[in-house]
């Protein structure tokens, strides 16, 4: 037992060296640097199970039942904010800025933004937000963002994967190279899932010189409203 204990740190260190050969750059105030313009390159916005661990979502039977009876139009078709984590894998670039005490996400998609404090605080209570209440912290080289108050109005994708207002998302951003971030999110929702589950995907830096985010406004004009047909047919009861 004592030998195992003595060996453990050495093995751990070796593993770490093998897993993280990339030396993460630091911001001027010494935090791991995630700044730049990034984008997911996958189709998770259409079906999140593509990036889910084991490619399955551990739905509770009652959640599937609830889902079958629910609205059939993707809230983003009404220019709604897509929620977290969906905003991260929308097929549009986003920019991360880090300032002392803050990490700021500026998304091209429908000009959403998240201004997140990195100083510890308690979550807000009794409010539903589309993009949730986010509190960030740094754990070594990882940026961890704890998100609650996400409400039940957003979908995880346009395939109508849903959640309740009990959803709790823990996002992790890890630099894996000069132009890559590994993104991981844990989703907990005791009213919807039988256990917590994870999604993970790489985020790619947009390296095109002079690339800038542009304005994306939704539904211009008085009746730009778009009702999209249901993407996924309702399960037969």
């Amino acid at each position, binding site marked *: 037992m004592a030998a195992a204990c003595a060996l453990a740190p050495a093995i751990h260190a070796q593993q770490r060296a093998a897993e993280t050969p990339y030396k993460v750059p630091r911001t001027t105030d010494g935090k791991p640097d995630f700044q730049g313009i990034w984008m997911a390159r996958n189709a998770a916005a259409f079906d999140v199970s593509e990036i889910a661990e084991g490619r399955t979502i551990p739905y509770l039977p009652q959640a599937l039942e609830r889902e079958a009876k629910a*609205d059939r*139009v993707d809230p983003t078709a009404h220019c709604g*904010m897509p929620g977290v984590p969906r905003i991260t894998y929308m097929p549009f670039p986003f920019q991360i800025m880090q300032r002392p005490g803050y990490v700021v996400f*500026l998304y091209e998609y429908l000009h959403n*933004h998240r201004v997140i404090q990195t100083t510890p605080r308690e979550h807000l209570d009794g409010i539903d937000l589309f993009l949730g209440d986010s509190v960030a912290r740094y754990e070594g080289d990882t940026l961890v963002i704890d998100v609650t108050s996400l409400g039940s109005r957003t979908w995880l994708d346009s395939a109508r994967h849903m959640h309740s207002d009990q959803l709790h998302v823990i996002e992790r951003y890890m630099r894996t190279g000069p132009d890559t971030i590994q993104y991981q999110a844990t989703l907990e929702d005791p009213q919807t899932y039988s256990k917590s589950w994870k999604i993970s995907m790489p985020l790619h830096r947009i390296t095109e010189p*002079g690339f800038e985010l542009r304005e994306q*406004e939704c539904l211009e004009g008085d009746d730009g*409203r778009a009702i999209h047909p249901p993407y996924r047919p309702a399960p037969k009861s």
Partner: protein
Amino acid sequence: MRSALLRVTIVMVLPLLALAVAQTPAPKITPAGAGNLAGEATKIDLEKARTFKPPRTESGQPNLEGIWQPRTSGAAFSILPHSGGFFLGQGSETGIVEGGVLPYQPWAAEQVKNRRDHVELDPTGHCHYEGIPHALYFTFQIFQTPSHIAFVHENMHAWRMVYMTGEHPRDYLAWMGDSRGHWEGNTLVIDVANNNDKSVFDMAGHFHSDQLRVVERYTLQDENTLIWEATLIDPKVFTRPVKMRFPLVRAAKDYAIMESGCFEDERDQAHLKDAAIPANHYKEEHEKEKK
């Protein structure tokens, strides 16, 4: 946090009042960002601004970072002198326009009257981006780096990036325009071009064309006061350049920029009023459309 939250909630609810007022008695509210917070008047003192030594960022620029609350005396309602009232907010003897007059060309003056009679055309009532200067009448937060400066607005969940490099793009029009900045001494100067002709200055019908160019100047007057001055040039609409200015004050320490969800047209505002999309709403909509 709680007080910040309350204020934010009020800001979120404000655009809905126009709809809600018909049925419900008007609650007594103080719109946080609209510049009519209780408290002593903030005066612009350009001499003080000239001599003030501003704090600096770690890269040496004057540090404008923080959450700023404009003092516009209800510019969102009218940028010209106006009396107060429920839909007009706090009255103002001066407005934010130098001289209190907008030099509209005759055809444009007719347009203003027409627009004033059709408040329903106001794009902010349809949850659109407000544009510059309109977005500045409400609380926003500045984040600075040497190469780019982000303005993150609470209202309409808008944001704009001011690039300290590059040029205005070609063939691009945007609600918030395209912003290129530089420092002149301790003043941040921003040239806003590529403005579309859809955003407006206020709810009183004051508008501009896609030829609008706004040159903004941000100068710290003291630690907690920021002066905004601008020159607006629009040869299609105005007969001469227009000057505007108003002060902004630093928000209380517990203030936080929060989510402001405003989407789409009035129909969705009604849904947001209930803080939820009613059950079977989409089903009913579909059925209506089938008929």
